[in-house]
């Protein structure tokens, strides 16, 4: 296990480098575009443009810009946001908890609903409950989460008036004030993910239920509930662990759009605003940290998976 852990953690280093390199070259696909964005609509003289170009180091060749940039960002210095005039890292740190809460809550919600539903659909395979859950999960996967968010706002905020339509309060204002503003975003984000989790759980459960040892367990007269919940679920769980990791990554990706619907001041909203305003340092930093969290969680899931499933540790 130690060897496997070391190997996985070491392979993390090149992954980080690749992530940073991709971010650098993709955002600079078009040379000089940060300037055009920065100057934008204002009438700015040629001198000022030159000055900004020099300040950002954009007069250097791309490769030397890259070699200049990489050591800096590796120490966490993504520069100063063009729009907020604050260090990127500070803005990210301030926004980060919101995205984390949203992602963690919707992950929990997705798992609590999705996994039991998937197991139930697998047991009732081919029956009404299976079809019903299939229809619901297909619909959930087809609906754009941002649209679902607005439907929830219309129902629970506008029509019923139970919950606030948008905005955010930090937990300092009291737990309920904080939680009630997260309920609708979490619901909107989860409903889109539940479909996926139901399908994957159902699939791995059906696979396990078809195996011989299950027939054996049934043959020796064990009650069905014991066969399903003890014998089958234990084996299906290893596959479901990966689903949990996937949900987290999905949640982080989805938060980008959900935060815009509900005006949550998180990392996702920051990234999209930076993209629209072409605030490149902010965009690069925001995307890097969002991706980093997804990678770390992925690493933890892999390690957990190897812990529960020793066979994994010895394959390559």
């Amino acid at each position, binding site marked *: 296990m130690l060897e496997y852990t070391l190997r996985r953690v070491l392979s993390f280093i090149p992954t980080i480098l690749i992530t940073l390199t*991709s971010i650098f070259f993709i*955002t600079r696909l078009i040379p000089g575009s940060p300037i055009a964005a920065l100057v934008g609509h204002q009438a700015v003289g040629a001198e000022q443009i030159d000055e900004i170009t020099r300040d950002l180091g954009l007069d250097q060749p791309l490769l030397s810009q890259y070699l200049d940039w990489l050591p800096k960002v590796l120490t966490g210095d993504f520069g100063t946001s063009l729009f907020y005039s604050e260090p990127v890292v500070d803005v990210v740190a301030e926004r980060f908890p919101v995205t984390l809460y949203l992602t963690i809550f919707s992950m929990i919600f997705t798992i609590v609903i999705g996994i039991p539903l998937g197991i139930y659909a697998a047991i009732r395979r081919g029956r009404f409950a299976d079809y019903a859950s299939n229809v619901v999960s297909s619909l959930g996967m087809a*609906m*754009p989460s941002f649209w679902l968010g607005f*439907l929830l706002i219309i129902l629970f905020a506008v029509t019923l008036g139970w919950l606030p339509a948008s905005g955010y309060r930090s937990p300092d204002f009291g737990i309920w004030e904080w939680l009630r503003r997260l309920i609708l975003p979490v619901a909107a984000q989860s409903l889109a993910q539940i479909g996926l989790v139901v399908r994957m759980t159902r*699939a791995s459960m059906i696979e396990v239920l078809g195996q011989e040892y299950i027939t054996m367990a049934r043959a020796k007269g064990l009650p069905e509930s014991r066969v399903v919940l003890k014998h089958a679920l234990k084996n299906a769980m290893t596959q479901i662990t990966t689903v949990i990791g996937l949900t987290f990554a999905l949640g982080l990706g989805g938060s980008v759009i959900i935060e815009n619907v509900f005006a949550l001041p998180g990392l996702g909203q920051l990234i999209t605003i930076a*993209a629209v305003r072409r605030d490149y340092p902010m965009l690069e930093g925001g*995307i890097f940290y969002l991706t980093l969290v997804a990678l770390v969680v992925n690493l933890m899931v892999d390690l957990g998976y190897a812990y529960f499933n020793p066979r994994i540790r010895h394959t390559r």
Partner: protein
Amino acid sequence: MSTDPAHILPESFWSSLSGARRFRLNGMVVAGSLILIPLVLMAVFASFLTFLDPLSIDASQKLLAPSWAHPFGTDHFGRDVLARTMYGAQISLRVGFGSMLLTALFGILFGVISGWYNLADVIIGRFTDSLMIFPGFVLAIMIMAAIGPSELNVIISVTVLYIPRVIRTVRASVVEFRDAEFVEAARTVGVGDFRLLFLHILPKAAGPVMVQLSFGFAWAVLVEAGLSFLGLGTPPPAPSWGSMISDARDFIRSAWWLITIPGCMITLAVLSLNLIGDGLRDMLDPRLQSRGEL
């Protein structure tokens, strides 16, 4: 024909998809097509189905509820929502079709190269891995920020987003069959590399690639809508379903039709394409469970 025995060896695309003898049209494919075909017809014949211009502004016709004159009502600029919905279908379908065409072309090309040449495999593998690192459509946001919002650029970023999956599938098929007996047999009778690849090996990958492209088409519709909603996709005044939802957000209290209609259209389009993908997969290999991959 008879001079080349290798001719009889490869399975054709259609028989690999359906198994010829066990051909049975899947219910999900039928259901998906029944939803998709009207959408396609609506997009293609938009200019015959409505005489209203999706872009013409009329301040006197602002925010009208659905009526005979405007079955889907009008928006805050007095534009006819039905016309915008129909022309919006054109954008979604163009983006989906365009990006999947590019994905298929380059995905197959890079996949074949990657599976056939070991050196290229390392480079292309690194490349696809690095694209798949980013969660959700963060990568698309980054690309759109760099190259600017336009319909063509949406097609490009959806392609970049989706191509790693197709490359991997094609590569897997090439690697699987590279040393297969029928390939060796073909080689001994003097079939060249190029022909081997494109006539003998690639048809084996055709089924899985088709499945992926139909899911990719659905994904493209969602990504286009999402990007346009964020203001990074198809720029206004083009009637993209995503920007229609974005425009409608200020009127959710007063004009329900503005937000419900484009959302329903996206859902129907994505649902139909996912159904077709699921159905095709079951036709390919009935043992495979429907594993929803993004």
